């Protein structure tokens, strides 16, 4: 099966020298691409050729290459992470494409995510939102015994589903309003149903949404594109939960 035919692809890649540079698409040929390669391996080979030719390689973010760190961030043919269900760019395989395909590769685009170089954007704003309240302030000392604090199974599952967020920012990239509501709502929801998080739930939701606004993210208008873009399948029910927590916090 590894003897599948290789492919030749045309890549239109966004190249941008720095945050202030206007940036533009450059066209590259990716030759003899194996369907078993990952998308990032394919780009690695294109970069090898660029380096050999004495040109600047395409800058892109990556780290774990197994879908857990949330570093890889590319909009491929208009879809964050390439549009395959629950898949990050690093997990995307070239078998998704066919010989002769043209592929557009762009960075996450949102005011809150300025481009650093080419496909690399600055996602510090997501950390800023977490710093505003995505934690519990109680000092817990050493690691507590497992099950010292009992959490009912449905709540534990709910919190785990929300905690699946890897903070990649695909929800922002996919949102027509450049909003980080899905990201924020996942953390708000996760902590709001757990005993340690409940005490500060009201303050947390206000601080985090206020910071979201200050960071230059847009407002949610319920397009639900974020859920479609999310490589971890974070559900928009968490945004409803955030709205609920916000309304509760007013009283």
């Amino acid at each position, binding site marked *: 099966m590894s003897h599948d035919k290789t492919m030749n692809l045309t890549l239109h890649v966004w190249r941008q020298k720095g945050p202030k540079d206007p940036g533009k698409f450059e066209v590259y040929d990716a030759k003899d691409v194996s369907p078993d390669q990952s998308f990032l391996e394919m780009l690695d080979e294109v970069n090898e050729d660029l380096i050999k030719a004495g040109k600047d390689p395409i800058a892109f973010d990556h780290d774990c290459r197994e879908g857990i760190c949330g570093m890889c961030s590319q909009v491929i043919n208009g879809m964050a992470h390439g549009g395959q269900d629950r898949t990050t760019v690093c997990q995307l395989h070239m078998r998704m494409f066919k010989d002769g395909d043209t592929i557009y590769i762009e960075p996450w685009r949102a*005011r809150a995510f300025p481009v650093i170089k080419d496909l690399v954007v600055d996602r510090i704003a997501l950390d800023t939102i977490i710093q505003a309240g995505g934690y519990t*302030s109680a000092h817990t000392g050493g690691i507590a015994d497992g099950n010292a604090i009992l959490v009912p199974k449905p709540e534990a599952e709910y919190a785990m589903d929300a905690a699946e967020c890897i903070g990649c920012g695909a929800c922002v990239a996919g*949102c*027509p*309003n450049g909003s980080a509501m899905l990201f924020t709502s996942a953390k708000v929801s996760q902590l709001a149903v757990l005993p340690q998080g409940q005490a500060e739930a009201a303050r947390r939701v206000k601080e985090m949404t206020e910071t979201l606004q200050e960071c230059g993210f*847009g407002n949610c208008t319920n397009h*639900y*594109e974020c*859920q479609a873009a999310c490589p971890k399948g974070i559900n928009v029910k968490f945004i409803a939960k955030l709205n609920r927590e916000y309304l509760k916090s007013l009283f």
Partner: protein
Amino acid sequence: MSNNFQNNEYAQRDTIMQLFTSTVGRKVLMAITGQFMVLFVIVHMLGNSSIFIPGGINAYAEHLHALPPLVWAFRLVMVCVASIHILFGIQLSLENRAANAETYAVKNLKKATLASTSMLYTGLLLLAFIIYHLLHFTIRATPDIKIGVDALGRIDVFGMVTNSFSYGIITFIYIAAMVVLFLHLSHGIQSFFQTMGWNNEKTLPVFSKIGMVAAVVLLLGYASIPFVIVTGILKG
């Protein structure tokens, strides 16, 4: 930025005023005012359907305006509701545009719809229609208006309406406006439940269907009136 998560300052903040400035608060105000207008358009449609009963709409109009102070109080409420909805709608839309100024060369939307992406435009078209509609049948200042009295000495609303719909362009404007309303509400009604937080993964598809059905019913209900008049199905 906010470093007061751990101190008391937060507890003393003015909470209700945040509704007018925060990202969720303004959405909630839009949702409530939008839903209020939805209730209004439902009642308005039911009222209009009195046209199908002989003499019905003339009687309805007379009763409706029997208590001027109540009519004016209601109009005042509607103006406030609509203003909040429109002002925040424009403000939020402008912010969203600024937050996503650089668009993708290739766009591939999976869930967003024509309705959800054109809310500002359908909203502004509705505003234009509401102004025209008020000038037309409420203030009765447009040139096509003919007002008479019926056999019982009441203002002949039926005659006024059928006369106006004898102009093709007016019929077209009314039906087109109802299509625009349909688009606005096909996204807006389900959006209301999500914004209010009354939603989860099981209810979301249900609310989407309810919203769509309600939007279709409103479209058919309203558009049926110019339709039956123009086609001659409904005669005085």
